[in-house]
């Protein structure tokens, strides 16, 4: 079985992604929301996605390292005896921003976050291929995001809209 990438969008990597209300400190969630916006807007136009497609669209977040900056912020606050903001609780797991994306765009398929050991894109396509084969979804929005671990190198975020089969 194969899958087809209908639309691919990449955050350009210059400057900061647009701020996202209630998400603080880290670029991770804003990057996810912006890459998703670029991809879905290119394919569908403004939100929401047509209801019949949104009802069968999975939302998949793929990040090997996860939200490095939020994790480090909480660790530093705990170690220094500082107070942790309630907002850090709300963004403590990668699902949270997927809740924002799914709500804004009307996507009610499965919500999945993974940290793959192999090539992230290949693993993501394996994952959505399985979802399609099992009948869990007919479309998948896949967002691949990694925060930079090298000074001077930008964070990366790519979103793919994927469908089953070999023809667009």
């Amino acid at each position: 079985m194969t899958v087809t990438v209908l639309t691919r969008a990449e955050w350009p990597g210059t400057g900061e992604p647009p701020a996202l209300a209630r998400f603080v400190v880290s670029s991770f969630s804003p990057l996810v929301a912006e890459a998703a916006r670029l991809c879905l807007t290119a394919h569908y136009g403004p939100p929401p996605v047509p209801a019949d497609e949104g009802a069968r669209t999975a939302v998949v977040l793929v990040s090997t390292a996860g939200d490095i900056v939020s994790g480090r912020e909480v660790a530093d606050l705990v170690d220094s005896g500082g107070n942790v903001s309630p907002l850090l609780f709300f963004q403590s797991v990668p699902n949270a921003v997927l809740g924002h994306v799914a709500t804004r765009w009307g996507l009610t398929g499965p919500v999945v976050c993974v940290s793959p050991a192999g090539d992230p894109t290949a693993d993501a396509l394996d994952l959505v291929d399985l979802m399609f084969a099992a009948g869990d979804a007919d479309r998948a929005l896949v967002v691949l995001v990694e925060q930079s671990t090298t000074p001077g190198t930008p964070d990366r975020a790519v979103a793919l809209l994927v469908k089953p089969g070999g023809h667009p």
Partner: protein
Amino acid sequence: MPDEPAGTGTGTAGIRSGHPLRPRSVGITGLAVASAFGRGLPALEAGLAAGVPAFAPVTRFPADKYRIGVAAELPGAGSLLDELIAVVDQACEEAGLRDRGTTTLLLGVHREPGLARLPRWGRDPAASSAGLAVTLAGKCGLAGSPRAYTTACVSASTALIDAASMIRTGRADRVVVAAGSLVTEDDFAMFDAGRALAADGVVRPFSAGRKGLLLGDGVAAVVLEADPHRPLTTLSGWGRAGDAYHVCQPHPDGTGMARAITDALDRAGLTPAAVGYVNAHGTGTPHNDAAEAAALHRALGPHAARIPVSSTKALHGHVLEASGLLELAVTVSALRTGRLPVNAGHLGPDCDLDLVLTPRATDARHALSLNAAFGGANTALVVTA
């Protein structure tokens, strides 16, 4: 935009690509667990039978600065990796798994506090949840291309669903699913900041006066196999769906969870009349439990009022990413022993459900195990004796 077909990867060992869909059963042939009740399924079953919550003052870190200082800790817990190795080895031994090297590992895992404290710049890519999965697979002799699930409280149940789908669609003959979460101060600080912890020190799922959740340790592993001769139980159905409602609150009408339940029953070829027990997500938070009760009524109709329901988080605590596996073990145990675990901490009715308030015998053959998470993620599993 690129429209070319993207070939699916073949890097996950044990996968047989290209096989046509065929209805293979998904059996649980090995199951190992560690919780605040101790190591091994008998310890968990003894704790459930006693019905006494395992919460005690936290010993792992100073908790006096938080509003509540109790959790359900595994006595003598080692590192998360060591605890995971122990349950994976035990589950594989119980299953008599001989070909570990071609068996895929799917791991639901919580972020380790050690990883969070590494400097951002220059960080090794292996310092990740995936890196822990690779190390665990290597230590246990499993195939070298595992995947870690970081979908918060549905991590383990999502891994189980993917494993079952791999088997059902012919992509794999066997899969090991493991999950683990040990209470950390980072979690404690965040849940305290979010005012999610039960300030009265008691978890009261679906009860009037419920004030929140309490955290616990949970580490578990199962071996799932295609068409096994003598499984412990069968994972006969599964479903998952999103709410598309809020960043961290469930849809108050339970729409996503209801669709997950309906899909799970459809996949199992069952109707609501066949369900004899529900192990609920039941965190003890006001929003979750009301939404989950609504979902049960939406999906099960008039049967929702007569099917026994309990959330065992009131006994073993909320084990976050490992919830789906620990609670699968609870559900398997209920069907095998014929004893339904209690929904502890109850003060008075608030949700119209048949809560198991005192130990109850059952001859149920089919049970649901439910989980939900931030982002509106919902999963339902059907376990058949």
